[in-house]
């Protein structure tokens, strides 16, 4: 589903963020991406949803080479890749319902399909009672649920989560990762960058560890143990 082939990405002043990485993530996998800050985790994720372009190497998404993808095709790629962040990135002046509907709206979904799909998504993430709340009226966990509902609105093949539990308490973090697990079981491939030792160890899955832009460990069912 996601294949990196000799991928290198450097930023100005020759800061190498991703250094000749080979990585293969199969359809339906759930992968934790761990490692210290500045190891290149976020850059690797950004390469998947084409927020960044590789300097060298090739990247395949669902069998398609996106290394030289036409700019006009990037939106279509993004509809196949849902993304959630540590800071949720919800629109503060729109309700939960509107935040999700907005996403569907801007990828040209019909009003009727939106009216059907949004309640379905709210049900899925357990926010059916919060539809008319604004983000600042929600707890952090609820905001992240809303962001998740938005990320899966276009039924993407891949979910990218960049430190999704970074702003949440341990209990809420576990809920969010369980929800990601539910979405994974429904068929989406999930890649989650995290610092959350407790979550990784409590719900063990494939762990890819990065340091200085390189993959230093890849365990099929590992623990979060780069620190020691």
């Amino acid at each position, binding site marked *: 589903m996601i294949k990196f082939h000799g991928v290198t990405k450097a930023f100005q002043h020759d800061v190498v963020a991703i250094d000749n990485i080979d990585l293969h993530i199969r359809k339906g996998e759930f992968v934790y991406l761990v490692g210290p800050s500045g190891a290149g985790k976020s850059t690797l994720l950004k390469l998947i949803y084409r927020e960044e372009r590789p300097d060298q190497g090739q990247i395949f998404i669902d069998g398609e080479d996106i290394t030289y993808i036409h700019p006009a095709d990037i939106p279509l790629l993004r509809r196949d890749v849902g993304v959630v962040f540590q800071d949720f990135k919800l629109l503060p002046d729109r309700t939960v319902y509107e935040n999700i509907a907005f*996403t569907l709206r801007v990828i*040209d979904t019909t009003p009727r399909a939106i009216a059907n799909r949004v309640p379905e998504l709210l049900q899925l993430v357990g926010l059916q009672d919060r539809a008319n709340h604004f983000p600042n009226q929600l707890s952090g966990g609820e905001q992240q649920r809303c962001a998740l509902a938005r990320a899966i609105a276009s039924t993407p093949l891949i979910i990218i989560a960049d430190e999704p539990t970074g702003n949440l308490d341990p209990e809420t973090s576990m809920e969010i990762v369980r929800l990601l697990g539910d979405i994974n079981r429904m068929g989406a491939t999930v890649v989650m960058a995290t610092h959350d030792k407790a979550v990784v160890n409590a719900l063990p899955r494939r762990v890819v560890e990065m340091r200085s832009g390189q993959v230093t460990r890849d365990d099929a069912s590992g623990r979060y143990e780069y620190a020691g």
Partner: protein
Amino acid sequence: MRVSTIGFLTGEAFQNIRKNGLMSVISVITVTLALLIFALFLVLAYNLDFVIGGIEDQVEIRVYLKGDLDQQGIDALEATLNANRDIASAQFVSRKEAMEMLRQQFADKAGVLAGLEDMNPLPDSFAIRVTDPETADGVASWLEGLYGVDEVVYKSDVIDKLVVLAQYLRMGALGALAILGVATLLIIGNTIRLTVHARRREVEIMKLVGATNAFIRWPFVLEGILLGVIGSAISFGGIYFGYQWLLGAVARYLPFMPLAPASPYILHLAGALIGTGFLIGALGSSLSLRRYLRV
């Protein structure tokens, strides 16, 4: 594109204008003022055209005859002239009569004509009025080909000068439009830049979830177009009602002053103003988006 999508994008554009209240108002005022000045030049030029047309209606074609044409030739020519349907009247002015008129014109400066009593340099001529001023050009060239005709004169210098003046006014209108147009473009561009800034979160999310670039751009372009069209509509309204008022006032207090009637010219003016407003808005927002909306 679906109707619901067009509705959504238009709604977003109106929302942008509302949220961006002050800058939107400033943009509209700028468009309005710029186009008002443009329109004033055009109205002046139009009125000058009207005056020129009026003078041309009254103007006579003067046909000067060759000195060696005898009375028989003059009679023949007069018959030919009277047979032409485009000619309303042809009045013969002998060289003596011409000299007499000249003498009256210069009555107080008799010295100018001193010495011309014995050798009158003026030729015989016909003063001709055409039935339709539109045909004046054709009649004039027809006259030139007639036997015994030396010279045909029908456009006075005054008209030529007025025509040039009208030309300058039109150039002035375009010049004003060019200068003020650039200022207006910048103001609209800046407004759109502020909207883009205010909506950067929305834009970021739109990009993230896979909205096409066209979809992201539309509300901003539409916002610029709306600002341009609203501004031009207000300037047109101002010109329209201002001109109606002026027509009324002039008819009452300066009835001898020729002012062009509003229609059908006013429709052309509406088209020109609103079209220009549309273009300025679309261009201003597009230029701004190119710089500030990296999609």
